[in-house]
C-alpha cells in the first residue's frame, strides 16, 4: 500500500510536468486493496491514454475524444491489473500517438522531469514521444511500470530522453485489443520500467495470445541458452549517419566495448535500406492512419460539431474542429496515397519496400544474434530548439527506432550513460530477432550492470 501512496504523492508533486491526463488515485487505492486480498503485492501503473480502461476516459490526448469513456478494458491493461497493477492515471502523449515530442496534445505538453522547474512555462526539456507521459511517470516514481505503444519508436524514444528502460517486444506478443490503433501492423504495446529485469517481469504478465486479437501470438519465455561469450553482436554501419552526435556515438562505441569485455564478439554489418525506412513508414502508415481515423465521425462517440447542414458537413466540421494539425496532415496525405490513381505508385510500393526492409533485418540475424545501435541522435532537445527547427529533430531521432517496427522484432532502449555537457541521459538500443525478447532483455541487463 505504501508504494501506491508514494506513487500518488509523486503524481501530485510532479503535476507541473503534465505526465497524466486523468488521475485515478481512488481507483488505484481500490485496486491495491483487491490485490492484497489476492495475496499479491500492488505496484503503481500508468497507462498511456490510448488504452481502454473501463469507466475512465481515454482521450488519445485529443479534443475529439476528450469525454470518451470506454465500456471495456484493454487485455494488456487487465492482465497487469490482475497481477497487482494499480492505475495511478492515464498517461499524456502526442495526439493519437502521432509525434516524437508529446508536446502538441490537446491537454498540453509533457515535460521531461529533468527540465528547469523555474522556467517550465517558457521552455522545457522534451520528454520524447509519443508515450511521453508514461515515460516521465516511471522517471519520477509515479509508476513502477508504464504501458505505452510503440509504432515507430514511441516508447524507446521517450525512454531514451528520460533515462529509463523502454522495451518494445516482438510484434503480436502483447495483445492490441483495447489499444486505439494507429498503424495496425506496426503498433506494439510496450513497457517502461527502471530495469531490464522489470521489463521482462511486466512483459510476461501482459504477453500471450488473446482470443480478441487475431494478430496476437505467444512469446517464447524459455531461459537464455547461450552465454554472452557465444553471442555475436552486429553494429549496423548505416546507423552512424550525419545526424548522430559525438556523445551518442561515443556511448554506442563504449557499449560495444563493454560487450566485448563481457565476452561477446562484435562485428560491423550493413543494412543499406535503413535510410528508406522512415520514408516507407511515412507512406505505409499514412494509408493505415487515414483508414483508422475514419471512424471519428462524431456519431457514436467523439466531439460533435453544431454544423448540422448535412451528414458530411457534420462529420467534416467535427473532425476539423477537434483534431490537431499533425493528425490532419497525416490523414490528408494518407488519403492522397490511397487515391485510386496513386495507390499502386505510393501505397503498394511502400508495402513492397516494407517487405524488403523487414527481410534485410531478418537476414542480418542469420549472421549475428543481436544488433547494437543508438536510440536517438543525442540527448533530448529543449522545446524551443525543437520548435525553432519546425520539428525536424523528430525525424532525425525516428531514424534509429523506426526500422525495428517494420521488421516486427524486439528492441530495448537502455539508459547507459549521461551526457557530460548537459547532464541529460544518453541511451543505446539492443535489437533481437523475432521472439528473442528474453535474449534482448537479458543481454541488456548484463550490459547495464557492467557500465
Amino acid at each position, binding site marked *: 500500500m505504501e508504494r501506491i501512496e508514494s506513487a500518488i504523492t509523486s503524481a501530485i508533486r510532479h503535476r507541473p510536468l503534465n505526465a497524466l491526463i486523468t488521475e485515478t488515485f481512488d481507483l488505484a487505492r481500490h485496486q491495491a486493496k483487491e490485490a492484497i486480498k489476492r495475496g499479491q503485492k500492488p505496484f503503481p501503473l500508468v497507462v498511456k491514454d490510448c488504452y481502454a480502461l473501463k469507466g475512465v476516459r481515454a482521450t488519445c490526448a485529443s479534443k475529439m475524444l476528450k469525454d470518451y469513456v470506454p465500456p*471495456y478494458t484493454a487485455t494488456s491493461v487487465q492482465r497487469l491489473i490482475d497481477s497487482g497493477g494499480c492505475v495511478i492515471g492515464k498517461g499524456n502523449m502526442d495526439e493519437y500517438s502521432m509525434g516524437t515530442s508529446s508536446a502538441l496534445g490537446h491537454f498540453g505538453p509533457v515535460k521531461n522531469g529533468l527540465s528547469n522547474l523555474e522556467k517550465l512555462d517558457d521552455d522545457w526539456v522534451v520528454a520524447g514521444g509519443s508515450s511521453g507521459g508514461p515515460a516521465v511517470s516511471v522517471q519520477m516514481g509515479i509508476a513502477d511500470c508504464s504501458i505505452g505503444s510503440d509504432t515507430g519508436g514511441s516508447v524507446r524514444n521517450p525512454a531514451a530522453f528520460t533515462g529509463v528502460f523502454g522495451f518494445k517486444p516482438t510484434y503480436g506478443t502483447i495483445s492490441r485489443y483495447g489499444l486505439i490503433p494507429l498503424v495496425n501492423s506496426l503498433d506494439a504495446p510496450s513497457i517502461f520500467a527502471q530495469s531490464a529485469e522489470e521489463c521482462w517481469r511486466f512483459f510476461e504478465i501482459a504477453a500471450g495470445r488473446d482470443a480478441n486479437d487475431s494478430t496476437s501470438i505467444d512469446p517464447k519465455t524459455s531461459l537464455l541458452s547461450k552465454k554472452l561469450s557465444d553471442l555475436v553482436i552486429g553494429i549496423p554501419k548505416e546507423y552512424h549517419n550525419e545526424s548522430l552526435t559525438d556523445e551518442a556515438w561515443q556511448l554506442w562505441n563504449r557499449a560495444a566495448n563493454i560487450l566485448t569485455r563481457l565476452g561477446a564478439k562484435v562485428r560491423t554489418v550493413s543494412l543499406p535500406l535503413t535510410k528508406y525506412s522512415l520514408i516507407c513508414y511515412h507512406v505505409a502508415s499514412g494509408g493505415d492512419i487515414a483508414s483508422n481515423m475514419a471512424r471519428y465521425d462524431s456519431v457514436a462517440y467523439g466531439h460533435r460539431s453544431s454544423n448540422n447542414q448535412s*451528414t458530411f458537413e457534420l462529420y467534416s466540421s467535427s473532425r476539423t474542429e477537434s483534431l490537431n494539425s499533425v493528425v490532419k496532415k497525416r490523414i490528408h496525405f494518407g488519403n492522397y496515397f490511397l487515391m485510386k490513381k496513386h495507390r499502386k505508385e505510393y501505397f503498394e510500393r511502400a508495402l513492397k519496400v516494407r517487405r524488403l526492409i523487414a527481410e534485410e533485418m531478418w537476414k542480418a540475424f542469420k549472421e549475428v544474434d543481436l544488433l547494437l545501435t543508438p536510440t536517438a541522435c543525442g540527448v533530448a532537445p529543449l522545446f524551443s530548439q525543437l520548435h525553432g527547427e519546425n520539428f525536424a529533430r523528430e525525424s532525425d531521432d525516428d531514424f534509429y527506432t523506426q526500422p525495428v517496427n517494420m521488421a516486427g522484432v524486439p528492441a530495448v532502449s537502455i539508459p547507459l550513460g549521461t551526457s557530460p555537457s548537459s547532464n541529460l541521459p544518453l541511451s543505446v538500443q539492443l535489437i533481437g530477432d523475432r521472439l528473442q525478447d528474453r535474449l534482448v532483455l537479458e543481454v541488456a541487463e548484463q550490459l547495464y550492470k557492467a557500465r
Partner: protein
Amino acid sequence: MINRFRCRCLLRTTIRKFARKTPIANDKLLVPDVPESSHVDDIGEVPSFDHKLITHLERLSLIRFSSEEAVANLRESIRIANRLKHIDVEGVQPMITVWDNMECPLRDDVLSCELERDEVLENAAETMEDYFVTPPGNIPLGAEKPLDLKLINEWDKLGQPNPPDPRGKLEVKTNKK
C-alpha cells in the same frame, strides 16, 4: 562575396557533420567512426495542386485544409514519398503483416453479447430513442472558399512556416476520477 561566405559556411557544416568521431579514452574503436550519409535524393515531380484536387481530398478525408500551409505540407509529403522510387520492387509482394507465413488460430463461432445497449449509446453526443442520429445524408461536401494556389504551389519561395506552439495557450485542466 556573400555567396562565397555562404559556400564556406555550408562546407564547414558539412565537414563537421561528416567528421570522424573519437572514442572515449581507453575504448577500442569498434563502431565505424566515419558517418555514412542517410540522404536520399529527390526523384520525380510533385504535381501542382488545383482546387478540384483540394476539394476531392477534403471529401475523401472529411477534413478541411486549414490554410495554404496545410496543402503545401501535403506537397512536401509527396516529395518525400517519391524517394521510394529509387528502389527496385520488381517481383516483391506487398507486406501486410510480419507474420504472414504463420497460421492464425480461429475463434469458435460462439455468440457473445459483450455490451449492453446503454453502454453502446452512452458516448454519443446525440441519441433519440435508442438510435444514433445524423443530419440528412447523400449531400456531397461543398467546396470551401478557395485557397491561394500560387502560394501553395510555390510555398518554398513564398511560404512562411508557422509551426504549432503550445506555449502561452490556456492549459486544459486534467481531472481526477
